[in-house]
């Protein structure tokens, strides 16, 4: 099997396409994907339709009014709709073809607007295998190929045998290594393009970890994203269900003639009533996303596999890693758990939905030691655990306090002058204290630290996040100084990385300037590639 695949990819291209040889599948010819992809296309069609529901909503509204007048039309419309879905899926399937030849992959797709993608293996930066649950019984997978850079070009082979996909992935990544590798270490690679290095499992997540992750991090979005089109219906239905089980919402909020403790218990139970289902959903969401989580390393590649229904596999070369984020929410701080994120370039992923986890490798709810182990594995020289963070200037605290409290003070003053509703004042004071607490916490979290290779930034509010990136990966710097800051010899700086921007506010002018100069110097003199 392995030999076969080698032959396929390394041998010369055979000119133009023959018609599809159904009996013996030769990937050098244009070929269709497995018919299993029909399910995928149907789902994509439905998903796209819900995505555009805003645009077709008026049509639906008018249409449904018309149809309600003579209900006999419902059935034909339903059939027509189903036929439309089936037809579109069939056409999409029919026009989706791909071909492998001469170290490149070509994909033709599209029914009305034709799309043709030609992607040499050496340009492919990232291979992602997804196994949607409806593919898993049949052993198929989606293979997404990403290129780096600002040019939007990515390709997806919608349904491909999983074994073949794995082989292809090895080939592609091996091809990439060949173009990069220095001549001296390349001898074995030339003879056998894919002697896959052994995979070492770095981390696994068990069910209890995922439950903790669900509690500490809101993973509700997995449901929310899927349910978005139905949210209105659900909320109206919910009220009805509650009535059925003998719970009258309106009566519940009747505060007239109730004592203080009654109101307090009411609101407490209300909070619990909302929080408990959310937490449960969040735990389920966490399990769906991260079930059987495995982070492994093979050579210089990190591989993340997880998912309950849809198995998702993300591969990232160590050189693609732009930044390590060590993230703790306040609950994480209490429980001593950490979410570790390996971030890579996000240039290609602007289209994906916020809920998707694709381009990051997230290791959910690891313990402190595990986290340090993983960070050290990726960046052995880093000193995140030991470095001394410097505080930013206290003026940031004063500015933010002034910004947040001024509107409240004005509000309080207005109320005082008008002399009505003095009982509101304690609430305003309480709120102001709460805001001040948050601002102070936020200020205390700010910190930065630098060593020869890395810049570390600490920030957060109730939680605490650490960012760590190699200096030579910086894409762009900016040095900001307002007139007021200049007088106090302070400045703010920003580092733009391929994975996003990192700010350090209100640090001494000299240190800020040195940081910017130093990082520009490292980028420009080392001439190391950022990917």
């Amino acid at each position, binding site marked *: 099997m392995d030999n076969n695949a080698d032959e396929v990819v390394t041998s010369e291209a055979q000119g133009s396409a023959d018609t599809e040889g159904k009996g013996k599948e030769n990937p050098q010819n244009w070929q269709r994907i497995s018919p299993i992809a029909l399910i995928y296309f149907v789902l994509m069609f439905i998903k796209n339709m819900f995505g555009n529901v805003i645009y077709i909503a008026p049509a639906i509204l008018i249409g449904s009014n018309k149809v309600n007048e003579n209900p006999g039309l419902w059935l034909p419309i339903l059939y027509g709709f189903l036929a439309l879905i089936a037809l579109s899926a069939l056409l999409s399937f029919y026009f989706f073809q791909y071909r492998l030849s001469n170290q490149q992959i070509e994909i033709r797709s599209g029914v009305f607007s034709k799309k043709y993608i030609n992607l040499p293996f050496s340009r492919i930066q990232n291979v992602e295998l997804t196994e949607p649950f409806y593919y898993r019984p049949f052993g198929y997978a989606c293979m997404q190929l990403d290129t*780096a*850079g*600002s040019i939007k070009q990515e390709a997806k082979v919608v349904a491909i045998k999983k074994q073949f996909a794995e082989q292809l992935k090895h080939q592609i990544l091996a091809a990439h290594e060949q173009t990069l590798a220095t001549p001296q270490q390349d001898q074995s690679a030339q003879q056998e393009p894919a002697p896959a290095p052994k995979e070492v499992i770095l981390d696994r997540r068990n069910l209890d970890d995922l439950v903790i992750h669900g509690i500490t991090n809101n993973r509700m979005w997995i449901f929310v994203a899927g349910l978005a089109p139905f949210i209105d219906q659900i909320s109206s239905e919910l009220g009805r269900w509650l009535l059925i089980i003998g719970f009258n919402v309106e009566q519940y909020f009747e505060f007239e003639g109730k004592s203080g403790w009654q109101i307090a218990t009411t609101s407490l139970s209300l909070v619990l009533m909302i929080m408990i289902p959310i937490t449960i959903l969040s735990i389920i969401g966490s399990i769906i996303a991260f079930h059987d989580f495995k982070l492994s390393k093979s050579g210089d590649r990190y591989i993340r596999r997880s998912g309950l229904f849809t198995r998702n596999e993300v591969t990232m070369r160590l050189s693609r890693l732009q930044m390590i984020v060590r993230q703790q929410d306040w609950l994480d701080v209490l429980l001593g758990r950490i979410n570790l994120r390996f971030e890579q*370039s*996000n*240039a290609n992923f*602007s289209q994906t939905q916020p809920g998707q986890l694709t381009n990051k490798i997230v290791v959910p709810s690891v313990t402190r030691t595990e986290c340090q182990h993983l960070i050290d594995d990726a960046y052995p020289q880093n000193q995140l655990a030991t470095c001394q963070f410097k505080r930013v200037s206290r003026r940031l605290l004063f500015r933010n306090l002034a910004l947040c409290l001024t509107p409240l003070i004005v509000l309080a003053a207005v109320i005082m002058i008008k002399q009505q509703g003095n009982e509101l004042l304690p609430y305003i004071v309480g709120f102001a204290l709460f805001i001040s607490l948050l601002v102070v916490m936020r200020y205390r979290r700010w910190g930065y630290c630098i060593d020869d290779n890395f810049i570390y930034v600490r920030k957060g509010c109730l939680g605490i996040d650490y960012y760590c990136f190699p200096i030579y990966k*910086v*894409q*762009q*710097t*900016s*040095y*900001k*100084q*307002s*007139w007021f800051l*200049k007088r106090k010899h302070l400045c703010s700086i920003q580092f*733009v*990385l*391929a994975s*996003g*921007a990192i700010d350090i506010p209100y640090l001494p002018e000299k240190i800020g*300037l040195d940081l*910017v*100069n*130093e990082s*520009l*110097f490292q*980028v*420009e003199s080392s*001439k190391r*590639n*950022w*990917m």
Partner: protein
Amino acid sequence: MNTNVENEFSNQQILQPQIPSLSAIEFEPLSPLYARTHRLVVLVRAFIILLLLMVVIYQPFVELPSQLNIALSIIAAILTTLNLVNYVYVYFADPKKQYALREQDINYQSGLIFRKTVSQPILRIQHVELKRGPIDRKVGLANLQVFSAGGAMHTFAIPGLDYEHAEYLRQYLLNHRDLNQHG
């Protein structure tokens, strides 16, 4: 032998390579045409918006509800104030915009109260664009846009360059050794 060695011997202190500093950069101004045209554009745009609102308010054809009229007048007043503030800001801020090309990076400084210096190392550049709107073409100016992997949010841009000079800068960036090796 011994004397020979002694003659060649020298033990000067080796200083660390001096890191070039951002604060030592001599910035160059933008084209003098830029501030003038930009001011004019701001003014004309404000005038057109105001004119449109006035036309809607005072047109004799349709009787508008009085509440709508009041709302439109308030909007017109707010817009006029904002545009005036903007005009004053632009008047003082535009001459402060400047750029500098170094061997390894390109820098742009802007802002009146909040000064900001953006530095883009040339070897991280992914592609370069010249952008010219109709007014830019009329007066012979160009915007230089430099894209890195930092994403569209962090596009490095210098407005108001003379077209020929912008073209030269673009060629310089594209011909840069690092760009061709690491692009």
